[in-house]
């Protein structure tokens, strides 16, 4: 294995290819509507990226990533909603100046925990800190007690269910099942027109690559190797003197923060946030994106997310009544036939052939050895 601190040569090529695809090819080939859809897909890619670290490397399966996606999204949506609810925009209400759903629920003053969201700086900090600290609390409560595996997955599901019920139930403060709709401007800058969508897209792609770099760094550092060791032989790592719980908490928190950034970008790109991204079903869907992409592969997660969502959109456009069956079939096929997802297909079938064709010095062995030995992916 190449000992570069950050990325092997082939990984670097993989990142450049993805960058070329997202920065050059897609913006040139797609109209703004489709590009905005890609932006929406990419918000899930943040979650999938977090899951690669947390699940693929750390072995911690979280079925509640929607919680963090939602927290990040709601923090951003609260800021945008406050800005959209200026006194002049809402003069039709009984209490002007508060979000419309509060008015419908007979709330007459802005609740205290909404007030700081007038500030963009606070909001950006909250997008990262609220889910981060929440993950820290859950992680500490679970991992310090050595709760792991299936139990942890079930508890994260329960958290997702609880948060959904909370948001739906407290509709006066959260918008309930309708969510927060009609988000309009960011510091006076209209986020709805086409040119804004393009700017947001590139901004998001930039953030995504920042997260990819962080993930690469984690993976290639000693930390990443401990995570993998922990996944495969937890007790041995513990007996070697490492605090397993702390490493798990770290992996879980970083996954949570990535998900939250995705959520915040979602609110900006789609102009919308609702409890339907918080619950159990979306959380599991996010795990599926990672599984399809290959849970050991950082770039695979991004491709998996784009592919699954693209399939979702195009199948539902072509077969409005049957598309869910097609999608379900796709998942079953991928998981049965290619347990390592797209990255597995690439690493096992396509990459060796390409290598053979161009006569690269290190053909197949490099890939398979890596992925078996230390969980390094095959992009």
């Amino acid at each position: 294995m190449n000992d570069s601190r950050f990325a092997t040569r082939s990984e670097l090529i993989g990142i450049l290819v993805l960058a070329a695809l997202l920065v050059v090819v897609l913006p040139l080939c797609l109209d703004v509507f489709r590009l905005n859809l890609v932006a929406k897909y990419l918000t899930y890619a943040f979650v999938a990226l977090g899951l690669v670290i947390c699940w693929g490397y750390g072995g911690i399966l979280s079925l509640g990533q929607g919680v963090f996606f939602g927290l990040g999204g709601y923090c951003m949506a609260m800021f945008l909603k406050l800005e959209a609810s200026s006194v002049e925009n809402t003069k039709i209400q009984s209490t002007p100046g508060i979000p419309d759903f509060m008015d419908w629920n007979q709330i007459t003053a802005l609740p205290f925990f909404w007030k700081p969201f007038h500030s963009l700086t606070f909001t950006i900090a909250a997008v990262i800190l609220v889910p981060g600290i929440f993950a820290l609390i859950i992680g500490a409560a679970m991992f310090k007690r050595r709760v792991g595996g299936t139990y942890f997955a079930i508890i994260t599901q329960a958290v997702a269910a609880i948060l959904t019920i909370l948001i739906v139930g407290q509709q006066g403060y959260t918008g309930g099942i309708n969510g927060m709709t009609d988000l309009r401007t960011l510091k006076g800058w209209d986020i709805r027109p086409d040119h804004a969508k393009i700017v947001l897209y590139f901004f998001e792609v930039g953030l995504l690559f920042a997260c990819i770099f962080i993930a690469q760094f984690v993976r290639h550092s000693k930390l990443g190797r401990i995570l993998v060791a922990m996944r495969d032989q937890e007790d041995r790592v513990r007996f070697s003197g490492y605090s397993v719980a702390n490493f798990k908490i770290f992996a879980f928190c970083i996954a949570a923060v990535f998900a939250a950034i995705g959520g915040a970008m979602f609110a900006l790109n789609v102009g919308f946030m609702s409890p339907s991204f918080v619950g159990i079903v979306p959380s599991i869907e996010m795990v599926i994106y990672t599984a399809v992409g290959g849970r050991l592969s950082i770039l695979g997660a991004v491709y998996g997310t784009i592919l699954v969502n693209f399939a979702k959109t195009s199948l539902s456009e072509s077969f409005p009544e049957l598309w869910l069956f097609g999608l379900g079939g796709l998942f079953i096929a991928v998981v049965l036939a290619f347990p390592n997802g797209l990255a597995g297909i690439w690493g096992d079938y396509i990459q060796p052939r390409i290598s053979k064709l161009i006569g690269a010095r290190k053909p197949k062995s490099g890939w398979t050895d890596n992925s078996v030995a230390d969980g390094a992916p095959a992009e």
Partner: protein
Amino acid sequence: MSDETNKGLQSAFRRKLLMGMAAIPAMTMLPRASFAQTPATSAINTTGLAVTDTEVTVGILHSATGTMAISETGSIEAEKLAIEQINAMGGVLGRKIKVIQEDGASDWPTFAEKAKKLLVNDKVAAIMGCWTSASRKAVLPVVEQYNGMLYYPTFYEGLEQSKNVIYTGQEATQQILAGLNWIAKEKGAKSFFFVGSDYIWPRTSNKIARKHVENVLKGKVVGEEYYALGSTQFNSVINKIKLTKPDVIFTDVVGGSNVAFYKQLKAAGVDLSKQALLTISVTEDEIDGIGGENIAGAYACMKYFQSLDNPNNKTFVPAFKKMWGEKTVIGDVTQAAYLGPWLWKLTVEKAGSFDVDKIAAASPGVEFKGAPEGYVRIHENHHLWSKTRVGRAKLDGQFELIYETADLVEPDPFPKGYQ
């Protein structure tokens, strides 16, 4: 509108006459007029909508999958029936309607995405769609931003009005007030117990109902309880109802929860032939799931029942069953969905254009005499003037019409004194 009430008697008579004739002549005369002078596409479509010399594209956007599919399927069917009938008559301004159907998948953001796709990519001239308030709230900013036209079929909580939406269902005051007046008078009801699902529509409806009970009827609300969507445990509220013995149970429980609620009510020994119950959320579609024997005797406050006895409905029901099967039932929202394509067609013909701005401006005053519910007209606020009706549920799952308002009820989405 004051002039409307003044002309009440005269127009009621005229309306009766028209209703009688509506089914045949109104439907056969209009297309000929539009055939005679098929206008040039460039003249009637100045904003680049999907209109050709022979076709105009319209979107249908409902949930064909997911939890809402059971409710929204009726709306899809009604809209397709209306469009087929319009096409059989020659279409709109000489153009056949082509449908692009999208699935909202019971997921509000998907609704927003698909609405955007219909408007931006497909350039549809109008969208027939949405069902839940949540889906409408998600779609509303999209249709406003891209200047589309949405025909929304469901009775809903009001507090909304948009240039880009025609609300073909009732807003809350239209649905509730007349029903409460009737039951207060008929049953001498003074005490009410409210039970609802926990989201914006039941909350707002109950707020309006409470104000009306307390301020107008001088009655009392002895209890108000909400249950999460999909909830199936109603025993505690049923106990409270038995303890407080209200004159009327007023419910807006939605969806699958209804099945549990009425079964448990019956199991607890509440006899709906003795205990008055007024619901604003149960149509023929819901009774299909609840079972006629569990709800027989309850009163529902709607604007349409499948059993309505008028010439329009007598042609509509068989046509619907012929297209979608003998066993289908037609509820209030299904009928309201059927109005959408017709109102759009009539408005386009009145405006002489497919342009959304012109349609929005021409909408007020458009009347549809072939409506299965009788007769409807679009108000300045883009809601419909329509009657409020009370029906009693029968064992066979149909409603027996007990009461209807003498005149059309004015839509009032921002009711003064009820907010």
